[in-house]
């Protein structure tokens, strides 16, 4: 214990007991530690007290419209892809009180609320999820107006990333260049090595805070073979990726084809249920609800996740702007893959595959892009039926 502090980028090996020590070290430093555990028939993110809480020996089988938990042959802690939840539920909560107001006679007082900011540590953040957090950082804190509560929750997070050892059936992070290996933005990154009877982790130091914490964890030097084994795990995951998405010229492709017949085809299947937007780790849209107590003396404003698939989302006096499911699916996909680049400099998609898995009718964003590309109007050609 109390070993020497490794440099950023350095690697070392840690056992299962080391992982338990890491969790205890985070808890003893006052972090609220969130990690994966079994719940609601899925792998969800919740408070973690030790390695016994982790979903050891479980994996997830994912396909379009299908998610099943299955037993693994081994006791891997991180032997699954991603579940329905993402870290956004902690950084950008589904329901959040924004402020409260008080009225006495004609007088009105509007009072900000103290922003609750637990010191979060996240265990098991995948490469695609790290990218998603960075994308939401850009949305909420990278512009001229910032979401101060998001910034407060995000500040000082301790992130333990996990490089993926299992490709999900709907993943396409290789296409989005976000995984399967975590690329920066973490304090520590783990690669789980569970072959040949051993069960260890290769740990990469990502920050000074990570180095400091890891100095107190039992460890051994990583050999060339250890590092090669970890690289092989990630390379195998990349090869086994379930899907691909061709991003070539995707902004022009989608922005230039708003009246493509494929929007009608996908709309005939889309239930506009909003599942894809709820599970998406980058979808950030919200609505607000105002209410007052029965006496009409106090009122509050609550912000809630919302979805571009609802009619209310685009409602202006007279009716919704996007009344047709076709227009709503087009809005979601064009925003995610094309308009996001104009707005925030990068695609809003990280390739996690959640929207494919959790779509009740199995609509596959990669398939929809391919279909539009296969029969696209090229730039500059007037589109039939436009306006």
């Amino acid at each position, binding site marked *: 214990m109390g070993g020497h502090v490794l440099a950023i980028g350095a690697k070392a090996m840690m056992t299962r007991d080391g992982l338990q020590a890491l969790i205890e070290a985070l808890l003893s430093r006052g972090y609220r530690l969130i990690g994966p555990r079994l719940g609601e028939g899925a792998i969800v993110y919740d408070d973690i007290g030790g390695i016994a809480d982790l979903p050891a020996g479980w994996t997830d089988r994912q396909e379009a419209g299908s998610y099943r938990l299955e037993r693994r042959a081994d006791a891997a802690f991180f032997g699954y892809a991603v579940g329905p939840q993402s870290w956004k539920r902690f950084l950008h909560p589904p329901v959040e009180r924004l402020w409260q107001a008080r009225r006495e006679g004609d007088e009105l007082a509007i009072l900000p609320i103290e922003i609750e900011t637990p010191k979060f540590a996240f265990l098991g953040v995948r490469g695609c999820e790290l990218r998603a957090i960075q994308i939401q950082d850009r949305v909420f804190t990278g512009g001229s107006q910032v979401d101060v509560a998001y910034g407060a929750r995000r500040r000082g997070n301790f992130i333990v990333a996990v490089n993926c050892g299992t490709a999900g059936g709907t993943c396409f992070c290789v296409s989005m260049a976000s995984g399967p290996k975590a690329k920066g933005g973490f304090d520590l990154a783990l690669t789980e090595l569970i072959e040949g009877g051993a069960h260890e982790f290769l740990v990469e130091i990502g920050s000074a805070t990570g180095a400091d914490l890891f100095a107190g964890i039992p460890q051994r030097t990583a050999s060339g073979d250890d590092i090669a084994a970890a690289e092989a795990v990630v390379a195998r995951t990349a090869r086994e990726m379930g899907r691909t998405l061709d991003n070539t010229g995707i902004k022009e492709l989608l922005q230039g084809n708003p009246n493509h017949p494929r929007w009608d085809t996908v709309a005939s299947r889309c239930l506009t249920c909003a599942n894809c937007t709820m599970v998406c780790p980058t979808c950030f849209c919200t609505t607000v609800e105002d209410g007052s107590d029965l006496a009409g003396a106090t009122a509050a404003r609550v912000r809630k996740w919302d979805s571009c698939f609802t009619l209310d989302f685009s409602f202006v006096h007279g009716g919704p702007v996007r009344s047709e499911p076709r*227009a709503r699916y087009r809005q979601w996909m064009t925003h995610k893959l094309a308009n996001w680049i104009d707005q925030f400099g990068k695609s809003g998609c990280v390739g996690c595959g959640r929207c494919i898995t959790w779509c009740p009718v199995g609509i596959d964003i990669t398939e929809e892009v391919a279909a539009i590309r296969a029969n696209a109007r090229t730039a500059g050609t007037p589109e039939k039926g436009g306006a």
Partner: protein
Amino acid sequence: MTAAFPANAFVPTAYRVIRQRREMRDVATLELSAAAGELPTFAPGQFNMLYAFGVGEVAISVSGDPGNRGRFVHTLRAVGAVSTALARLEAGQMLGLRGPFGTGWPMTAAVGSDLVIIAGGLGLAPLRPALYHLLSHRADYGGITVLYGTRHPRDILYRREIERWRRRLDLDIEITVDHADRAWHGHVGVVPALIPRAAIDPENTFALVCGPEAMMRFTVAGLRDAGLAPERIYLSMERNMKCALGLCGRCQFGPTFICKDGPVMRFDRILQIFATREI
């Protein structure tokens, strides 16, 4: 742990209604002053988020004189729960306000040029600050034409002010109504039909347009027929909006956010999306 962070832009400031004027059966104009502190300045075309206690918040354009510091003037129609609650406020009562937000009309770019101001219905309200500015800086601009269309003569907004302006020799105002009554001697028909009569010099004119989207669609077509280039046409767009900060995602119009890239948008920048249905 409580974080010390910059001012929370989600939290409204309390304002008091100084005066309430009923413009029509369902349209009211509110004059507001800050309950404490100074009123922020605004540019013609910008909007505020107005909050009715316990009911909610809506985006309403500023319709007062930008030269008159001391108060915000807003004209609004009671259509939903929030706007109905706001329209019922009386002098002395309070509301919440955030703003001003968004882009304004091209008052600087248009210096030295002619202007044609085209409004449909309540669309006159966001254009009135531009008119106030033009009239108080009259020598800086060329010819000014206002084309205004409403459903019925009784729906003419700011009627007494318009009658006063019509007596001016440095301002042309044409008004058209969809349905005339017996007392009406003016134009009958839609507002784009007035464009060919306006003798626009397309090389030297800026058009400022605000009204229902369908009206703006035909107006833009009329202006294009009159030879106006897309970069000389400005529209004030409307979408559902909750935060006005670019953070709630609702007011997206193609790649733009109406709350911060608009509401006033130069037509050449939205040409393609404006032509797309249900975008």
